[in-house]
């Protein structure tokens, strides 16, 4: 191979540069920072178990939306008998009052931007 030294050095430099964000995050200790949504302090019971909500809250919210807008049901009774209003502002956000610390914590991490708040009014604490 001609100019092996130059080529190999160049390749090495290129690899270092292109992977630099990974090294940077590893060095800063941010590589395995999992999102940590803040749960309400007082309220312990939610509409479903935590792992179910984490996995399926989007379809749950879609179901709730259709129930309220297109049907007549506006309350959800959990298996335990607790009643929740089917409402973002009067239901979910009554306990999870801080959008930035709850919703955005995970949504920013996985880079999704649901458009709920284009119309629904987010709780005052955020403003």
């Amino acid at each position, binding site marked *: 191979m001609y100019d092996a030294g130059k080529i190999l050095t160049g390749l090495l430099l290129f690899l270092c540069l292109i992977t630099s964000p990974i090294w940077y995050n590893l060095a800063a200790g941010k590589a395995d920072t999992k999102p940590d949504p803040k749960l309400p302090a007082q309220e312990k019971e939610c*509409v*479903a178990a935590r*792992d*179910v909500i984490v*996995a*399926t809250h989007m*379809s*749950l919210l879609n*179901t709730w*939306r259709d*129930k309220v*807008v*297109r*049907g*007549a*049901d*506006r*309350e*959800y*009774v*959990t*298996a335990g008998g607790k009643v929740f*209003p*089917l409402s973002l*502002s*009067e239901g979910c956000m009554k306990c999870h009052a801080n959008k930035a610390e709850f919703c955005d914590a995970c949504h920013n991490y996985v880079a999704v931007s649901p*458009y709920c708040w*284009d*119309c*629904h*009014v987010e*709780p*005052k604490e955020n*403003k």
Partner: protein
Amino acid sequence: MGINRRDFLRVTGVGTLLGLGGGVVRELGIVKRVEAGTYQPQPNALTARRWAMVVDMRKCLEKVNQDGCQDCILACHAVHNVPKIQDPKHEVKWLWKEPYENTFPSQHHEFTEERLHGQPFLALCNHCDKPPCVRVCPTQATFRRPDGIVVMDYHRCIGCRYCMAACPYGSRSFNWSDPRKALEADKTNPGFPTRTKGVVEKCNFCDERLAEGLPPRCVEVCTVKALTFGDLEDPESDVRKLLRSYYTVQRKPELGTKPEIFYIV
């Protein structure tokens, strides 16, 4: 390297079984279902078979001519976060005043009573029995509920404005720009969503308030009791009593939309 017939059948057979088995695993509940609870309406929700409204324009006009009253309009627009846009081409309105001649174009003639000339009549969505807006909506974002209220699912609206072309009463408004820019942030009602750019909106007969057991906001705030709300199918309801005792008119009844808003003139 080849494959003989026996091995081929074996491999495809096992593959098919695995494929079919995936559904069974799901049915067995290894993948968790969302719903464990039940749904119910709010306990004190107001219900009816056909909601309707009677507007007593004699009371309304007397008050309007006294002090330019627009209590109902302001209250409605405040509670539903309706943006205030001056440009008539872009304005958004749920409840508004319309000159008599435009409200009842087929009823008015050259020699109509003078007391009605150019008078501001209260206009809103007529919640028609045969709503043309519902017929034309390509996404079923607008639909008629079993209790007669014509409502919109803003999540589904794609902003095609067919409904605006179809509505003979001009009851629908399009958001040409972000309505939040025209709303004062501190006066927004957090209990009701705003709309977004590119969505049509209209009066919803306060379905969100009926669900909580409250009458429509315009009816609630009217100080002269010009607005009466009730069930058209109930012979003893307030609206039926008024309809029995007074001569009432509907807007453009000749179109066959069967409006649920009646006017005492």
